[in-house]
């Protein structure tokens, strides 16, 4: 199974699923103007409503980022902002609708003319394509192009980096080796996907999956014209099926898009395509980016990870700037996974750790309520169906460490004088290291002596992601962060808690939870087509995880972002926890 962590390893950005409203996610600070004044600008206005609605076309959108895309190849990209930007040039059979709030989580037919026909056994999905859909070179987009695009997901040996979900659903035994090793003359050898004609595409699932459509909404499921596929190099000039096509890509420096003349608005229910051109500039200096944002020479930070400390101060102290800022829940949870390394294999010792941790110090380490987010209370973020904002089993919201309870737990655990353990943090994450230090300090208060082991975040899959290595090195607590690739409870929690999701490398079920009850609940949820019922299962899973004291939730992350007042149609898209880039326009037409 693929993991999210590349995303976090890279920048602490999450390909987040959405959130409900600021009221739930926001601190008191962000509540006040929360759901206010649809249309008008204002602090957090974009979280719940569209700021400066407009249909005015023209102008150039100046996007900036403090880091480059991992890849522009739809199959290889994994950063949230890259998925978000993919909406400019990659259409899929279905895509998230362009609406603020919860509606953003809904899928709408995109290349598909309508909702798919789903067989009674929930194993066969059939889509009909729209008419008049074309690539940027004018050639029509056929079902074969879509199939080929999807096949590329199988070629993870050549196209590394992206998520690899679909094989799990369509070809669990990986009998298909991907288009590059395909013996079929048309390179369309994937059996479980068929294209009876250019307008029809059919998927045969190995087992039912409530999340299948979400998988089809990922950039990797977009169409790719086989004759233009250059394998690993495709990301240097991807074809476009959307309203914009690449004009130029300078790795590490910039990317720019112009209108795709062959895109027909009539065929696209989602995209507005207001600006004539879109430029993305990559800077090496985040502070520089901030000062350009505040000066209005940059429109938006596509990273959407929040401004630096310096700009934060400026921004919050000046009402005129503050009204152009939003503080959305970026949608992923920072937490510490507590492993099975003795004595932590004893639940009471795990509880001791959780009670001893100082919630405020940890929050501060990540930047405080605004920059870091609210103190985490459970392993299901507020914004996933099934979560309960008031569910706080370890009473963390009050913000103080609970030394007595911790000591109590220690005694029960048979370690009244505490014990030694190792905390890991990624050395390329300054804040994570600081958090580890904070944890170390508060554990000391109850007699637990912690050693911090920093490691190269790039090697996560093989260091903390390898259960064997974790045992060998005796890692007791692993600082991590997580967000789902698609907005459902299983999409979020299954990799973290399902006993069947423990690979030798790239494991994210850090506590190695092996609870049949949890596994069973996931299966039930997957078969459940009614979201509300599914939500009920997820709620139970969350409870079980917390009762097992497997994880110490730290914060549910937020980011303080600034939007240039000249931007129109600004709103946070709940799927990404970011501004919906494709909707943006510029008021002054420049």
């Amino acid at each position, binding site marked *: 199974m693929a993991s999210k962590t590349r995303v976090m390893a890279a920048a602490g950005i999450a390909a987040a699923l959405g959130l409900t409203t600021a009221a739930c996610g926001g601190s008191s600070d962000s509540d006040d103007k929360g759901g206010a004044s649809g249309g008008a600008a204002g602090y957090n206005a974009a979280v719940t409503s569209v700021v400066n609605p407009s249909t005015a076309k023209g102008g150039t959108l100046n996007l900036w980022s403090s880091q480059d895309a991992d890849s522009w190849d739809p199959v290889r990209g994994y950063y949230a902002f890259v998925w978000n930007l993919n909406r400019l040039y990659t259409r899929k059979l279905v895509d998230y609708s362009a609406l603020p709030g919860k509606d953003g989580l809904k899928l709408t037919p995109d290349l598909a003319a309508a909702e798919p026909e789903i067989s009674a056994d929930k194993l066969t999905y059939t889509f009909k394509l729209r008419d008049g859909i074309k690539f940027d070179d004018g050639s029509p987009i056929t079902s074969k192009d879509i199939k080929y695009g999807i096949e590329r997901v199988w070629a993870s040996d050549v196209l590394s980096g992206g998520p690899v979900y679909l094989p799990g659903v369509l070809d669990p035994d990986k009998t298909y080796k991907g288009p590059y090793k395909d013996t079929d003359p048309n390179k369309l050898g994937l059996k479980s996907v068929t294209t009876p004609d250019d307008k029809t595409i059919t998927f045969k699932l190995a087992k039912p999956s409530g999340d299948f459509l979400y998988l089809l909404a990922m950039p990797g499921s977009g169409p790719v014209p086989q004759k233009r596929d250059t394998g690993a190099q495709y990301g240097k000039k991807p074809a476009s099926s959307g309203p914009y096509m690449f004009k130029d890509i300078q790795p590490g420096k910039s990317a720019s898009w112009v209108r795709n003349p062959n895109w027909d608005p009539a065929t696209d229910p989602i995209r507005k395509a207001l600006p004539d051109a879109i430029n993305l500039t990559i800077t090496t200096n985040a502070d520089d980016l901030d000062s350009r944002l505040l000066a209005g020479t940059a429109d938006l930070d596509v990273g959407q990870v929040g401004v630096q*400390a310096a700009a934060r101060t400026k921004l919050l102290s000046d009402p005129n700037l503050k009204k152009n800022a939003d503080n959305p829940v970026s949608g992923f949870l920072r937490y510490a996974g507590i492993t099975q390394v003795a004595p932590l294999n004893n639940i009471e010792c795990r509880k001791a750790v959780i009670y001893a941790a100082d919630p405020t110090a940890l929050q501060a380490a990540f930047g405080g309520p605004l920059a870091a987010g609210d103190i985490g209370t459970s392993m299901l973020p507020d914004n996933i169906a099934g979560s309960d904002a008031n569910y706080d089993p370890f009473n963390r919201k009050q913000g103080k460490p609970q030394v007595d309870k911790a000591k109590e737990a220690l005694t029960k655990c048979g370690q009244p004088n505490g014990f030694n353990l190792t905390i890991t943090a990624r050395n390329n994450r300054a804040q994570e290291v600081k958090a580890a230090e904070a944890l170390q300090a508060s554990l000391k208060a109850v007699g637990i002596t912690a050693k911090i082991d920093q490691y190269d975040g790039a090697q996560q899959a093989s260091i903390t992601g390898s259960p064997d290595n974790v045992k060998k090195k005796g890692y007791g607590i692993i600082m991590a962060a997580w967000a789902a690739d698609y907005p459902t409870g299983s999409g979020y929690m299954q990799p973290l808690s399902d006993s069947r999701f423990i690979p030798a490398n790239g494991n994210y079920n850090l506590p190695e939870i092996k609870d049949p009850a949890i596994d069973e609940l996931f299966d039930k949820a997957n078969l459940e087509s009614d979201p509300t019922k599914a939500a009920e299962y997820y709620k139970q899973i969350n409870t079980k995880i917390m009762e097992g004291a497997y994880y110490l939730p730290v914060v549910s992350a937020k980011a303080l972002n600034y939007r240039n007042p000249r931007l129109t149609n600004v709103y946070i898209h709940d799927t990404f926890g970011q501004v919906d880039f494709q909707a943006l326009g510029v008021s002054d037409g420049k």
Partner: protein
Amino acid sequence: MSLGPEASIKEESTAPAADAADDRGGEKAIAGRSLKQIAWRRLKKDRVAIAGGIVVIFLIVVAILAPVLSKLFGHPIDEYHIDQIDPTFSTPIGKFGGISREFLFGVEPTSGRDVFSRILYGAQTSLSVAFLSALLSTILGTTFGLAAGFLGGWVDAVISRIMDFLLAFPQLLFAIALVSVLPDSFLFFGDRWSRVFVLVGVIGFFGWPYIGRIVRGQTLSLREREFVEASRSMGARSGRILFKELLPNLAAPILVYATLIIPTNILTEAALSFLGVGIPPPNPSWGGMLSDAVTFYSIDPMYMIIPGGMIFITVLAFNLFGDGLRDALDPKAR
């Protein structure tokens, strides 16, 4: 020279060392051990150098007494004081980085840890790394320099080659690389001290060619000196010549350059910590504090100025003293 532009040692390595040595040797040859007295008299006259020396001693004492001092005037280095921090800005609430009677040097952003104590322990790290690595460089440098200069021939060729090679190395990069791959903790040392030794190893190792070159040069010039010739003609064994004739005459320059390498090492250690391969947390180091300050220096300059200032003062003090010492032992270099 890429141990950062800070490698001010290069100046000394090119200063008229050889001729200076000639004088010195000469003086010695004639005036016997009176050189020590002359030097000491000169040094005493050099107020600036003495001032530097006093500061150095003060810092050493402070470093040694760090635990006591932080008990008396500060808080444990890993004790959090979140109440001192403004949650929204993660900067100290108090003015000037939260400097107060309670926190003499203010508190660390985000955590509220006591900067004063962290500076003291930082001094411990910086100084021990600097001294030990200087010692290592000196031992290696002297041994190989002597060997090269005295034995000459292929030994000289090989050693000189190695020295050139080491100097042709992008050293800072390598220091970073090495430190980041070497083990965090070994033997019975805690992770703090094992890292200190790793740093000592790396810095000391890349430092020895500077001393080595000088010692070699001096040995070569001394070797041809009458008194060495004399004792050789009198059939003295090499060993005797080496230790009775050469080393005493090399003592002065070695002492000077060993002293002058220390500030460079302090800067290097700080640089490595700044680049994130220094002492592991929560143990403080000045360079580490500076790199933390990068995020906040525009809104909480104090947190940058204090560790930066400490580095500056320390290095300056060592330089002043070192220069004074050189001038005292080697008037020509004035």
